[in-house]
């Protein structure tokens, strides 16, 4: 029997930066995730790479595991974040998981 996915969202204004929203659906793992806000990412088409890498991660992972994943993807793809940080994304994901 299929379990109903939970939905979560959280936001924060990054200090000295921009607004960051995370919306996600999950059970014991993240099945859908959107990172939204008025920040900048270079190259612009790289955000789905970060989102895609986080899908499938267990929701009970600690913030450092999410942070490491985001940093790995950013480094591998030469992604530059302006107005948000990998740390802020990881924290906001944990906030969105109730």
């Amino acid at each position, binding site marked *: 029997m299929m379990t109903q996915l939970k939905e979560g969202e959280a936001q924060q204004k990054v200090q000295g*930066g*921009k*607004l960051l*929203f995370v919306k996600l659906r999950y059970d014991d793992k993240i099945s859908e995730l*959107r*990172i*939204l*806000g*008025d*920040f*900048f*990412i*270079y*190259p*612009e088409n790289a*955000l789905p790479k970060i989102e895609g890498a986080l899908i499938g991660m267990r929701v009970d992972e600690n913030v450092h595991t999410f942070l490491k994943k985001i940093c790995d993807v950013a480094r591998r793809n030469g992604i*530059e974040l*302006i*107005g948000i940080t990998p740390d802020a994304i990881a924290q906001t994901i944990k906030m969105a998981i109730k």
Partner: protein
Amino acid sequence: MKWRVIGLKEHDAYFNMAADEVISNKIAENQALPTIRFYTWKPGAVSIGHFQSMLDEVDVEKCKELGIDYVRRKTGGGAVYHDENGELAYSVIAPEELFTKNIIESYEVICGWIVNAFSTLGIDAQFAPINDIEAGGKKISGNAQSRSRGILLQHGTILYDLNLERMFSVLKVSSEKISDKMIKSAKERVTCVLEHANITREQLYKGLLKSFTEGKDCKFEELSPEEVRMIGDLAQNEYKADKWNFMR
């Protein structure tokens, strides 16, 4: 380096966004000079940043009711209301190597052209990182930059006059309905040229044109017929499409 300058024109939101992309591609293919262009938005429009949600940021039904366009930009940044009469916009599109690799520093270079124009018009303004210009501690210009295929695109808006009631009738600053309190709060954060200098929008444009072109070898010309055709196609097929505008 020779630059192409396209003087002030009035276009709709979809044309404006498609124009920046087509020009960027032409420059990437060595088929166009680095380009500076000035424009206004008719009808008025809301543009949202690349990574924002249209439905979270914009009251789409209200836009339809008021005849205001809505479009997603290729650049990041926030949602902006582009008033038909209260704003002047620019785009700078050029090979990245003409600017510093550091993105914030390159914002400062181009925003510096606006600050310089303001100075000649008697407005004391400063670059406010990451991507704003402030006068008297309030935002007077917002700017957004993308880099793709070796091309830097920075576009931005200069607030000439404010229509906060209209602005907040289409922007969802909060889920609450527009209130006097919210407008007061925005007035504390946003300003416009007319609050600092009694000049026409034409005078503002002339000041910006002089500052943006200063020290550059400039050729004033229009978009080519081929560019206009390509822009029309891209506007219709991508920037007007729900698939693009509602992708987040």
